[in-house]
């Protein structure tokens, strides 16, 4: 079997981390990894190099404007955006894991292998419009995450959180699968384009509607929006901090991006599904915002607070689907970018301060802002951005979303969302107060966490940069991803693939790489 360069280009960004994920368990067979630092460093280096290579390759594809595809795997602009998004959050997680696992005294190479498997699954999830492949990708990124949640077995709550996540996740997967089955039964195809075309004809069958609803349920679970959010605080509390950060950012992000593809681009344009989906999105968003923000207010555990805050962010993101326009989808993607920086920064703070165990309270961080001024300021920026205060990236993200919501006439929803984000200021101030206004613990010895500290600092700087000049990211990365997928309704998408196959001769490809 031979592959054309176009097909190779589609496979490589996924294949590189997949191969690394297979190598790492072999490297971590070495019994000396618990004593020899260089073996551990080599394992982490494999992961970082693989992610970096995949990132570099994906950005090259992005730069050349190609949309390579291989069978049902099609790396269009939206998929490339998703890949870059996941790769960056994975690099954050790996860097923070190095410090966090050493603090915890539980360094295992397999953790990185599972993380990379999950990364491959996420990239695949966003890069296909075939529902079977989508389901397999969903499992491929979920199953490693179930294990990662419970992986630090020295923690008391690890197993409990992992099992809870696994059981609820299994229910969500079966909902997703049942939805696929019903849609296949009604249309005779697994391909979203064909499904959308054949559903658009004639009267919509109630079974097809049920299928779409079940599919949505699976997504909502992965986004961790209410009423399917109960697993979130327990799972985040049990998981190592960087893994919790990765779960909150990458899982949510990838589910939202796939939601744009499945619902935004294919199912919502069908009038009968579209109107109902809009109502469903609005109801889900409002419940999620209320539950997430109110529950976050009463938390004393830092990670549980972040878990509820991530639930409420799911609410803001779902509001974008209520508006449902191209601009709204662009706003969602921008919001995701800022969410990546601020949430991974906030979770990274835990690793940077060297907090271990599953019960990290606000009071564990008291006075640390003065002791580690750089990280303190950067983390403060992250929290202000999560609360949506200008001039941060979080503010721009919310502004774009709410503007689109108001333009589409959903003023009440916008008001609810604004009130919710005002409420959220209260609980985002808690860690800041703990860091700066409470007396420090006397005993503590200095914590060594160079990588985790660096990730928090980078986040802080980038949030401010994005908040001041959002235009570059918007025009460079966010807008192209959405234009392509919107234009990709049925016929147009087939055309795009054909053109890219014909036009891109091997020589041209060599030039562009």
């Amino acid at each position, binding site marked *: 079997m031979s592959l054309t360069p176009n097909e190779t280009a589609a496979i490589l960004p996924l294949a590189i981390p*997949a191969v690394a*994920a*297979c190598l790492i*368990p072999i490297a971590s067979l070495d*019994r000396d990894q*618990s004593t020899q630092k260089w073996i551990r460093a080599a394992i982490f280096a494999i992961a970082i190099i693989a992610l970096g290579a995949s990132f570099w390759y994906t950005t090259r594809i992005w730069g050349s404007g190609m949309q390579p595809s*291989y*069978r*049902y*795997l099609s790396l269009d602009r939206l998929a490339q955006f998703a890949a870059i998004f996941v790769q960056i959050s994975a690099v954050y997680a790996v860097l923070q894991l190095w410090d966090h696992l050493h603090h915890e005294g539980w360094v*295992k190479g*397999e*953790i990185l*292998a*599972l993380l990379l*498997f*999950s990364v*491959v*699954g996420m990239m*695949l999830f966003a890069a*296909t419009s*075939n529902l*079977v*492949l989508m389901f*397999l*990708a969903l*499992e*491929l990124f979920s*199953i*490693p995450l*179930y*294990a990662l949640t*419970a*992986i630090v*077995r020295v923690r008391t709550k690890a197993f409990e959180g992992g099992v809870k996540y696994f059981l609820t996740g299994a229910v969500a997967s079966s909902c997703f699968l049942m939805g696929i089955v019903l849609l296949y*039964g*009604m249309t*005779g195809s697994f391909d979203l384009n064909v499904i959308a075309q054949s559903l658009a004809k004639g*009267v919509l*069958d*109630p*079974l*097809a509607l*049920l299928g779409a609803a079940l599919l949505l349920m699976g997504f909502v679970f992965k986004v961790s929006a209410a009423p399917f959010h109960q697993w979130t605080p327990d799972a985040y509390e049990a998981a190592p901090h960087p893994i919790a950060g990765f779960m909150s950012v990458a899982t949510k992000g990838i589910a939202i991006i796939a939601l744009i593809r499945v619902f935004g681009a294919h199912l919502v344009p069908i009038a009968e599904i579209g109107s109902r989906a809009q109502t469903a999105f609005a109801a889900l968003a409002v419940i999620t915002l209320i539950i997430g923000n109110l529950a976050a207010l009463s938390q004393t555990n830092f990670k549980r607070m972040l878990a509820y805050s991530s639930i409420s962010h799911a609410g803001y993101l779902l509001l974008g689907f209520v508006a449902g326009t191209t601009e709204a989808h662009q706003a969602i993607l921008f919001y995701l970018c800022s969410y990546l920086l601020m949430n991974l920064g906030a979770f990274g703070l835990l690793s940077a301060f060297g907090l271990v165990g599953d019960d990290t309270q606000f009071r564990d961080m008291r006075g640390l802002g003065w002791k580690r001024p750089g990280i303190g300021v950067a983390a403060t920026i992250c929290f202000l951005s999560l609360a949506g205060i200008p001039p941060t990236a979080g503010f721009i993200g919310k502004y774009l979303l709410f503007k689109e919501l108001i333009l589409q006439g959903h003023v009440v929803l916008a008001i609810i969302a604004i009130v919710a984000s005002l409420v959220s200021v209260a609980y985002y101030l808690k860690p800041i107060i703990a860091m700066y206004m409470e007396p420090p613990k006397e005993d503590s010895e200095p914590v060594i966490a160079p990588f985790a500290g660096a990730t928090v600092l980078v986040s802080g700087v980038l949030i401010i940069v994005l908040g001041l000049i959002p235009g570059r990211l918007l025009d460079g990365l966010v807008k192209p991803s959405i234009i392509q997928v919107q234009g990709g309704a049925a016929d147009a998408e087939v055309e795009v693939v054909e053109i890219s196959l014909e036009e891109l001769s091997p020589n041209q490809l060599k030039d562009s790489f």
Partner: protein
Amino acid sequence: MFLAFALITLGAAFALFMQRNAVQAGLCMMLSFFGVAGLFLLLSNPVAAALQVIIYSGAITILVLFVVMLLQSHQEEPAARPGLVQKILSAVLVAVLALGAIKLVFSSSALANMPLEPPNKELMTLHKLGEQLFSEHIVALEAVGLLLLSAMVAAVILVKKEAQ
């Protein structure tokens, strides 16, 4: 025929839930899988039926039974008895869901108009299946490979004993 197989499947699944003995529950599961295999046969899809028997009734059930026997917990601990209110509530909920599903199926016009014969019967041979798997669905096949590997790594790391 259809009714017989459907009843076997449903009855065995129901017995699976009611059974307190884990080994017997495993055997009920096997019976239920056989019922599904029969349904596949009725759909004139012998390949799927054979795979169902080999993989589900054979491999998976045996594996489950092995695990149960290795753990030596044939008798499950009696769980907390659900209260009467819970029982009634769950019964009502199940009844409503079942009725809703039946009503949906009967009200579906697309289902009524569906042809009885499968559109491409010749696809349902082992030869064609293999060809399809390794050409059209090759990405999915690779994804399944990665999925199994990751599940295995996850299982090993979760139960591996510490050296100390």
